[in-house]
């Protein structure tokens, strides 16, 4: 891990997210009030989750093509961080929903779909841990993660749009989801996505290195 510039970038972007996220002028909208700033912390979690799942699927495919365990390390640790972000995303979303929609859980299509999506990824962890052979585990979980991702994207992006939803960007519920994203908000929103994603990637790579080192040490012990 020689390249560390992106870690510095992650720190800078996150510092910018927190400081500018709390201090910039935001549009004064009814119901949302100051909570509009949650955009930089709640929505970015889901974007980060999706980006990390893309990385996980990529390494899953690479593992299936080469059969090398080092790709499986990347796949599983990026999925782990993605699940962490997803859990944070759903918890922060519940808090936000309580103060804007009046309830922690509204049985909204977007909410239920994201809960199903998270459960699929919990099942991924259960599946992995139920297999003892490392190669079998890597192969089966790579295949599972490709299918899980292929189901996750329609679940959270397509299906909620086919029906009515309170959540912004879905269905037809004028007066609440109808606001377009403002250029002032974008100035913090896009750097925030990148910053949080890089932090997730950082944590993942640290854990990947731990895994690889552990395997090397085990191999050495066996070959002594």
């Amino acid at each position, binding site marked *: 891990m020689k390249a560390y510039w992106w870690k510095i970038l992650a720190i800078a972007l996150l510092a910018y997210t927190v400081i500018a996220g*709390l201090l910039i002028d935001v549009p004064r909208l009814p119901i949302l009030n100051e909570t509009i700033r949650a955009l930089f912390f709640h929505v970015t979690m889901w974007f980060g989750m999706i980006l990390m799942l893309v990385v996980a699927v990529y390494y899953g495919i690479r593992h299936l093509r080469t059969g090398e365990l080092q790709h499986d390390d990347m796949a599983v640790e990026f999925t782990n961080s993605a699940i962490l972000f997803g859990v944070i995303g759903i918890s922060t979303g519940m808090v936000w929903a309580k103060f804007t929609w009046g309830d922690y859980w509204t049985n909204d299509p977007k909410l239920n779909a994201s809960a199903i999506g998270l459960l699929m990824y919990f099942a991924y962890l259960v599946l992995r841990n139920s297999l003892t052979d490392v190669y079998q585990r890597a192969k089966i979980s790579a295949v599972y993660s490709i299918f899980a991702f292929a189901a996750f994207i329609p679940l959270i992006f397509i299906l909620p749009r086919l029906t009515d939803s309170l959540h912004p960007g879905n269905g037809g519920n004028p007066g609440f989801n109808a606001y377009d994203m403002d250029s002032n908000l974008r100035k913090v929103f896009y750097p925030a996505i990148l910053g949080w994603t890089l932090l997730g990637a950082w944590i993942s790579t*640290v854990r990947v290195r731990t895994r690889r*080192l552990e395997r090397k*040490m085990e191999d050495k012990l066996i070959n002594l």
Partner: protein
Amino acid sequence: MKKYIVILLLLISFSLKAQDKIGITDADYQNSDVQMADGMRSEGKIYVLVAIIGIVLGGILVYVIQTDKKISGLEEKFKN
């Protein structure tokens, strides 16, 4: 001729969206009917919040950096 009409219609349709969104205008930034934490900002207490969240984030980042360094050290050790 027909081709050009089709192209023209296509170009017009680019401006259409599946959902018409309400744009945010300058008026939304000045709309003082909507309650915001203005008192907190004018008293400067928002900086307390910035400092606290900044420290929490900084602490987590220091922890990640330390873990990163630790694993780098172990990798070095293993090589030798």
